[in-house]
């Protein structure tokens, strides 16, 4: 019987079948013989291996190959094993690399042969050795062959941003971009050759902004190390622009910079903590939910699952939105908090800990490394060190020095717990933690001093618990319970956060988490706050000098960025005001020396304001600042669109996105699976990197010489045309005194991989079989002739394992292994050397509580009416989506739209119901629309909306015209709500402005006031 006949017989359309039968007649028995797999698994992939049931041995499926590659489903950069179909050269599916900790909580040793490793993934054994790629990474399987990917060189064929393009030869684009001319029939456009004027100032009269070469503004993805290092070599060292921007500042850099201050001085790094899952007993996830984002979802997922089932870990997710992971039936709890109120929450915990003496006094009182060591501690602290707190004193805010009180050193001073007398901090075992008194200096003058911990305690106790409870929406009782729990597990406790808590005080939030972990002695402790051990940066390797360019520039020579990440007091503006006897403060614009994080959004804001100057050319490589930076002023978009304000713009990308859509030219680039990688992994406690080589042939068009077009090809060709230093013949120096060429992607990538391979302490031996099973044999083909024989072996060893993952004992003497002992800073004196460019006041040496405020110090509430904008806004990253992943078909399928989540009682209060189409409006008058969903899992008086949706101007969600042919937008790519364009600007700044973190100038986006109204 065929289908047509059957339907005719029953006389009804399909789907109106008879009522469900409960008959248990074993009807299936009538099928005597199982049909072949080709009939039952018709659309399924052919498996990559077959396992011999008798021996357990595996064989590779003919026509398929395996390869390792670094994942780019999000920014956590795990490692992948990739199945490729030989015939079509297409990726079939990806999964995790069993050697990589980020894919498996319990990775296989590097010296295990590759075939053995793959074998261990099969059968019953495969359960324990699972190496996974989460939904984000798995969905990126089809990133290479996406139907809306750009593989040809495009030039705009209409007005900028109009969505009309024509394909042109690569060489034509190159020539036009370098030489300029009347490129669009709109008048003359300056080319790169004209723009790079090293002998002129970028901002005439303000030499601190460097030469006019800075008129080239470029953005990039900082996360792919080999490629990013290549990009910055061109931009910084060779071309000589300081204006290269990236995403850190609008992602969450302020928190990590803040956290680091608990252990290092400013400018010495950014830290990101997570609980030591193996031994943790208690953890607070602030603004995040464990396993949801911030670190590898694979290793976090497994660690969380283990912790839940062992029932050892108790944890709270303190977040405006109940997300997936505080699972019922386990030790997790969701504590709703008002958006943007993380700082008062942390201060509440700190106050309670001081009020009740719930702090680790033994740890805190060790004033020097020796004292700490004697106690079996890794770190000592400056909690007992005395700070001058005398406004009349010239060194107010600095540590009292031993020499100032007649002791023979320049060390800090403490009161010795044993003798009660003051002493050189390096000479005593325990310092008194709480000191507030006067001492007499060598001149007989009295000086008011306080111990660092006294200063912190005073700040934490400055406000009542009721104040903090009101600010956060968390009851005093609950705050007390969390503080008690946090400090009741010895060191096996930790508070961590992710980027979903960036308010105007994100820096303070991060700093407080670091200090709270210090107060219980949790940093690097077994079961405490853990940190990644870092990765190998190939530009710092010594086989090839990749970070240096003969005849090129270093950072100091090229001036400061237009984001003013420098010292205001050295600026022409300051000097002019000083000379004219004008008030020195406030500065006209924010200056954020403490956070030199290449803030792309702030650079664009300066461009829109033509202050200190406008850019003349813009390169956007694999970065989407227009979409990603929340609250960009409409003037910024206008300044990118208007050729009179920006002469030339070039997108180097796989996709037309919200930024590259506004460009003049598109140079197609490699997808994540087509590139070389050796990248740091978020969340890995093993030192190492995930590495890979192109697993399929790039899909991009070739140049006349038959080479695939990509970012590297384009920049090398520009450098060669303009005779820029650092590229071409003999461009790279080797350790043994040779010089090698830099003409191709492979010239660079081979040397980069050689550098990182030589940094690895113990590379595994590589057999011929490993080379075949891992795909390294194929991967090495383009690299072999770029390397010495010895280097080839080292690079092959790295590629044969998809990276390098250094095994070492996890703990040493009760602490996580491999971390140096430090002086943990309760008071960070170095911070006080910075001056806020508005107030003119020094930064405080401890975090301080001040409800959210603008650049000029006004509270948000002063400008944003609570009555008109009664709800607080928060955003987050959902489990499946990344900002660019809408182009992966399965992402769009399983995550088709986001929702504006609101508490059901709040919705009722405003007459709204689940399913309503609503508008979110910010106090800047900007708005975005979406669908409301209500339940109990949202804090009252707030909304929470996930990022990564609403791509109505990118990734194929919108119509485009190429060579006169209309290519319709794919509607499921444009669905959902994009919240970033709605977020407000700072009304206390002039012109285009960004809402900033008060202390670092990074973008603030949480806790802002909005209103939600129903659309009729």
């Amino acid at each position: 019987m065929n289908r047509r006949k059957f339907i005719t017989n029953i006389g009804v359309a399909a789907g109106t079948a008879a009522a469900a039968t409960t008959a248990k007649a074993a009807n299936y028995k009538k099928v005597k013989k199982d049909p072949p797999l080709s009939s039952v698994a018709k659309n399924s992939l052919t498996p990559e291996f077959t396992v011999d049931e008798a021996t357990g041995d595996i064989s590779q499926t003919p026509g398929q190959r395996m390869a390792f590659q670094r994942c780019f489903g999000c920014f956590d950069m795990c490692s992948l094993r990739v199945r490729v179909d030989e015939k079509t050269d297409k990726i079939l599916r990806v999964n995790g690399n069993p050697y990589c900790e980020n894919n498996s909580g319990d990775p296989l040793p590097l010296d295990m042969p590759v075939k053995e490793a793959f074998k261990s993934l099969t059968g019953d054994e495969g359960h324990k050795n699972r190496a996974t790629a989460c939904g984000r990474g798995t969905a990126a399987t089809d990133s290479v062959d996406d139907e809306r990917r750009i593989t040809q060189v495009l030039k705009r064929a209409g007005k900028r941003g109009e969505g009309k393009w024509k394909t042109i030869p690569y060489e034509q684009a190159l020539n036009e971009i370098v030489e300029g001319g009347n490129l669009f029939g709109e008048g003359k456009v300056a080319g790169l050759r004209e723009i790079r004027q090293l002998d002129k100032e970028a901002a005439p009269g303000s030499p601190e902004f460097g030469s006019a070469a800075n008129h080239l503004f470029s953005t990039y993805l900082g996360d792919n190390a080999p490629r990013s290092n290549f990009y910055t070599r061109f931009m910084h060292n060779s071309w000589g622009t300081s204006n290269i921007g990236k995403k850190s500042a609008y992602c969450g850099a302020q928190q990590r910079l803040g956290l680091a201050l608990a252990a290092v001085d400013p400018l010495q790094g950014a830290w990101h903590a997570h609980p030591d899952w193996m031994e943790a007993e208690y953890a607070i996830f602030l603004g995040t939910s464990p396993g949801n984002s911030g670190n590898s979802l694979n290793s976090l997922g497994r660690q969380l699952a283990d912790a839940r089932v062992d029932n050892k870990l108790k944890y709270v997710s303190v977040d405006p939105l109940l997300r997936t992971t505080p699972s019922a039936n386990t030790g997790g709890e969701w504590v709703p908090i008002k958006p943007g109120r993380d700082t008062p929450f942390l201060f509440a915990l700190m106050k309670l800990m001081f009020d009740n003496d719930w702090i680790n006094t033994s740890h805190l009182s060790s004033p020097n490394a020796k004292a700490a060591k004697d106690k079996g501690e890794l770190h000592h602290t400056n909690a007992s060190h005395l700070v001058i707190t005398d406004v009349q004193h010239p060194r107010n805010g600095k540590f009292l020095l031993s020499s100032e009180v007649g002791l023979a050193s320049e060390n800090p001073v403490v009161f010795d717990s044993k003798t009660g007398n003051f002493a050189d901090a390096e000479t005593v075992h325990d310092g008194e933690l709480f000191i507030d008194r006067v001492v007499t200096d060598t001149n007989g003058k009295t000086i008011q001093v306080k111990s660092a911990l006294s200063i912190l305690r005073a700040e934490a106790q400055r406000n009542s618990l009721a104040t903090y409870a009101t600010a956060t929406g968390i009851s005093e009782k609950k705050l007390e319970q969390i503080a008690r729990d946090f400090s009741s597990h010895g060191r096996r406790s930790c508070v961590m956060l992710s980027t979903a808590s960036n308010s105007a005080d994100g820096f303070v939030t991060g700093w407080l988490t670091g200090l709270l972990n210090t107060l219980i002695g949790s940093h690097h402790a077994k079961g405490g706050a853990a940190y990644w051990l870092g990765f190998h940066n190939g530009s710092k390797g010594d086989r090839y000098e990749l970070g240096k360019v003969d005849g090129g520039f270093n950072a100091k020579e090229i001036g400061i960025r237009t984001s003013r990440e420098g010292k205001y007091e050295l600026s022409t503006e300051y000097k002019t005001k000083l000379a004219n006897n004008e008030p020195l403060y406030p500065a006209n614009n924010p200056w954020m020396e403490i956070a030199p994080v290449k803030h792309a959004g702030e650079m664009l804001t300066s461009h829109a304001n033509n202050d200190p100057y406008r850019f003349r050319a813009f390169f956007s490589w694999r970065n989407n600042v227009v979409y990603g930076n929340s609250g960009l002023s409409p003037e910024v978009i206008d300044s990118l669109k208007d050729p009179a304000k920006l002469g030339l713009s070039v997108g180097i990308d796989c996709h037309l996105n919200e930024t590259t859509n506004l460009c003049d030219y598109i140079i197609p680039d490699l997808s994540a699976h087509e590139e070389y990688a050796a990248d740091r992994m978020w969340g890995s406690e093993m030192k190492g990197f995930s590495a890979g080589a192109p697993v399929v042939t790039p899909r991009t068009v070739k140049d006349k010489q038959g080479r695939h077009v990509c970012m590297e090809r384009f920049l090398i060709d520009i450098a060669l045309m303009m005779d820029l230093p650092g590229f071409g013949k003999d461009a790279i120096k080797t350790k043994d005194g040779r010089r090698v060429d830099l003409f191709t992607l492979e010239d660079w990538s081979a040397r980069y991989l050689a550098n990182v391979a030589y940094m690895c302490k113990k590379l595994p031996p590589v057999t011929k079989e490993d080379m075949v099973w891992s795909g390294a044999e194929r991967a090495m083909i383009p690299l072999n002739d770029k390397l010495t024989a010895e280097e080839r072996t080292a690079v092959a060893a790295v590629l044969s394992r998809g990276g390098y993952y250094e095994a070492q004992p996890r703990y040493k003497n009760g602490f996580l292994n491999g971390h140096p002992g430090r002086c943990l800073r309760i008071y960070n004196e170095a911070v006080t050397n910075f001056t806020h460019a508005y107030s003119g006041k020094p930064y405080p040496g401890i975090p301080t509580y001040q409800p959210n405020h603008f650049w000029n110090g006004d509270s948000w509430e002063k400008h944003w009416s609570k009555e008109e904008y009664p709800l607080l806004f928060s955003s987050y990253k959902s489990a499946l989506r990344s900002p660019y992943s809408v182009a992966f078909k399965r992402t769009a399928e399983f995550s088709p739209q986001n929702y504006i989540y609101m508490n059901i009682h709040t919705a009722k209060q405003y007459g709204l119901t689940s399913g309503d189409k609503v508008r979110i409006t910010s106090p800047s008058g900007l708005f975005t629309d979406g669908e409301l969903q209500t339940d109990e899992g949202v804090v009252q008086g707030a909304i929470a909306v996930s990022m990564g949706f609403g791509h109505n101007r990118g990734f194929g969600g919108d119509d485009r015209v190429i060579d006169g042919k209309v290519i319709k937008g794919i509607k499921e790519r444009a669905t959902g709500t994009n919240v970033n364009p709605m977020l407000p600007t700072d009304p206390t700044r002039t012109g285009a402005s960004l809402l900033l973190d008060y202390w670092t100038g990074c973008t603030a986006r949480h806790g802002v006031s909005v209103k939600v109204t129903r659309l009729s």
Partner: protein
Amino acid sequence: MINRRTMLKALGSGITLTLIPTAQILAGNNRDTKKLAMVIDVRRCTGCLSCSVACAIENGTPKGMTRNQVRQFSTPQDDSFGTMAISTQCANCNEPTCIEPCPVAATAKNKNGVVYINQDTCIACQICVEHCPYGARAGDKNAQLPPEKCDFCIARSSHGLLPACVESCAGHARIFGDLNDPDSKIVATIKNNQVYTMLEAEGTKPQIYYIGLPETTEDEKVLALNYLNWQR
């Protein structure tokens, strides 16, 4: 049909899940054939959706005809709320109700216990879709394509590999194997835990066993949830 569920409903009682005794699951141990089954420990699921995505790619399922869903919802917990993430898919029942109605015998149970669809003989009438009490067969609303259902990745499992959802499970929530193999991980897991099935009273003897489901879980409600509504 009057079963325990409808009786409880009639009595106005809360419906609770029924514990499935280990002995019952492992009865009829026969080393000559396989009895493939899966355990899902919901406490270990972190909702990363790797299983759903990996399944869709591995099996080439048409958009919207997913074989594998993670149904998530918030639920009261102490003085706050918690969440549950419950993966659902065809349970390859021992006594399936979806086979008998097939007019062309395109769907059947193989010797290893897998309920498959022979796509060469299926006429895409979708009748079987209506006969699954779990809604586990994803039908084609245009009646052009065979329904999609979990067959434990029959191509993979036939070659000694784990199903895509199992090998992709970041939280190790999924365990797959042969109930007839006393040394297997799945047998050990079932022996060491309390396990439940969904819609036990339907009598289909599903071969997906859950660990960590609160007894108060209302399985009918869970199965009726739109898995796309949870975007957190």
